[in-house]
């Protein structure tokens, strides 16, 4: 026999919770952070050494961005696009997606100038194509090179080890902390039914816990590094 209160039909309509703005913003940021995955790339057996590729990328981006002659720009474009079109479709997609987003932004920024046609500024797709090429080149590099090879390449270019170490850790921690924020917010959401008056308290809580967990992880990693013989010298990295 069920107790009486369970047989009664409830008429409970929770009040609509307005202004979820702050919470949903943090949630979006958390999602975005968690999505930054370290690229694995489609690097196959024999490729160019990463240092060489990095230098090539830098030269390419530099020459595209300072190019004033069309022939130089065309040569870079022919090289980048000619290489890209030999790839399988599913590998082209992320590269082209990123670069078309960037060039769309450039297009929006230049749109007023292109429509109004002031006399001094040529009505021209020069800058947009430069943006497209630079981002594509970066995308190609990113896609063909594993992250640890990129760090090796940076190391060979004699960048200070502390810098590389920080970069490496930052990228890893952004992902970890992003997914942590995401989990916390999901649990807050599941537990709060109806109108939550103390929204800003919970935001403070989420950030606080993230900070505490972050410093805990930090401590743990430092201990783990010490166990493996880390003496505070980054040079052997």
């Amino acid at each position, binding site marked *: 026999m069920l107790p009486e209160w369970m047989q009664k039909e409830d008429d409970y309509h929770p009040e609509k919770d307005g202004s979820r703005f702050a919470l949903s913003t943090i949630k979006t940021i958390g999602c975005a952070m968690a999505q930054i995955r370290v690229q694995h790339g489609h690097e196959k057996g024999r490729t160019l050494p990463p240092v060489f590729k990095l230098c090539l990328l830098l030269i390419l981006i530099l020459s595209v961005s300072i190019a004033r*002659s*069309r*022939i130089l720009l*065309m*040569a870079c*474009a*022919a090289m980048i*696009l*000619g290489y*890209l*079109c030999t*790839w*399988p*479709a*599913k590998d*082209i*997609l992320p590269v*082209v997606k990123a670069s078309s987003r960037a060039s769309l932004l450039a297009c929006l920024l230049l749109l007023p100038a*292109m429509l109004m*046609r002031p006399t001094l500024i*040529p*009505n*021209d*797709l*020069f800058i947009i*194509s430069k943006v497209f090429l630079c981002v594509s080149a970066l995308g190609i590099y990113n896609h063909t090179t594993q992250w640890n090879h990129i760090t090796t390449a940076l190391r060979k270019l004699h960048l200070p080890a502390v810098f590389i170490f920080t970069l490496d850790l930052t990228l890893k921690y952004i992902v970890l902390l992003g997914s942590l924020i995401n989990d916390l917010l999901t649990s807050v959401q599941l537990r709060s039914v109806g109108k939550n008056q103390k929204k800003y308290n919970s935001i403070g809580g989420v950030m606080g816990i993230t900070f505490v967990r972050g410093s805990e992880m930090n401590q743990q990693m430092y201990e783990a590094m010490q166990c493996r013989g880390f003496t505070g010298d980054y040079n052997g990295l």
Partner: protein
Amino acid sequence: MHIPENYLSPATCAVMGAAMVPVWVHAVRRVNRDLPKEKMPLLGVGASFSFLSMMFNVPLPGGTTGHAVGGTLIAILFGPDAACIAISIALLLQAVIFGDGGILSFGANCFNMAFVLPYAGYGIYSLIQKASGKKDRHGISYAAAAIGSYAGINLAALCTAIEFGIQPILFHDAAGNALYCPYGLSVSIPAMMIPHLLAAGIVEAAFTIAILAFVRKTSPDLLYGDATKTHTKSHVPLFALTAILIAASPLGLLAQGTAWGEWGADEISAIVTNGKTLGYTPQGLSKGWTLQALLPDYAVSGFNEIIGYILSAIIGTALLIIFFKLLSIPVKKKEKYAA
């Protein structure tokens, strides 16, 4: 046959653009349904054949130049709907990047070259094939392809000539000077049709047959509507042919002179027709909106034209192949969960 910016009134451009919308919708639907996704990257190769063939200018009688379009060829290889899309994309690239054909007149250019040409060409081709009854005889199919492509490009040229020709009738200022294209039907039709009937049509037919024969020999599985031949050969020869066409594209530079109806605003007042120069620049041409293309006329002024031409060919081909490769990615359907 590319109509440049401001030769047609904005109203004409809008009408032609609106006329193309249902065609594109129909073509996209049909292609989604009929063309297997694996064939999409090859459609890119087809589009780049068309792109490259438009770069080979041939000198025409009367000091102008013309070029093949390759529309019937793509229609025979991939079907007329796929050809419509492929040529539209090639035309868009030419308009935006290479300044061949205007952006406002993109709809009109598509109507002529991406709608009239492939559908008419393919229609005639398949009519002749059907009338002859025997499908296996190569001679007949080559003849059908030749006639189809010849008729297709001439019909497209006729449409272009009519679009040019009605401009001075519809749009002129108080002094009677035309606002846009200054030549009426009586000038534009012979000016477009005679060279196309005599030369460009023949070039188009020759181009179509040559490539069709090559494809039939090296990768017969490509031919549209031939479901019996399913085994896939390597398509390396096709890509090799593209590379050869790219390398040979500077031959198009041999033909000097501007195609009829493709003059720049600075050239038009000096054009001689029936012994008279025009003597004025139509207002719409001198004051209209233009977008300066990235690589105007496939070349870089003051630099080696041949290098510019080859680089343009590579960029155009690569962009087309990338675009159609991206189209070949199957669209993921979002799964819906019941609430």
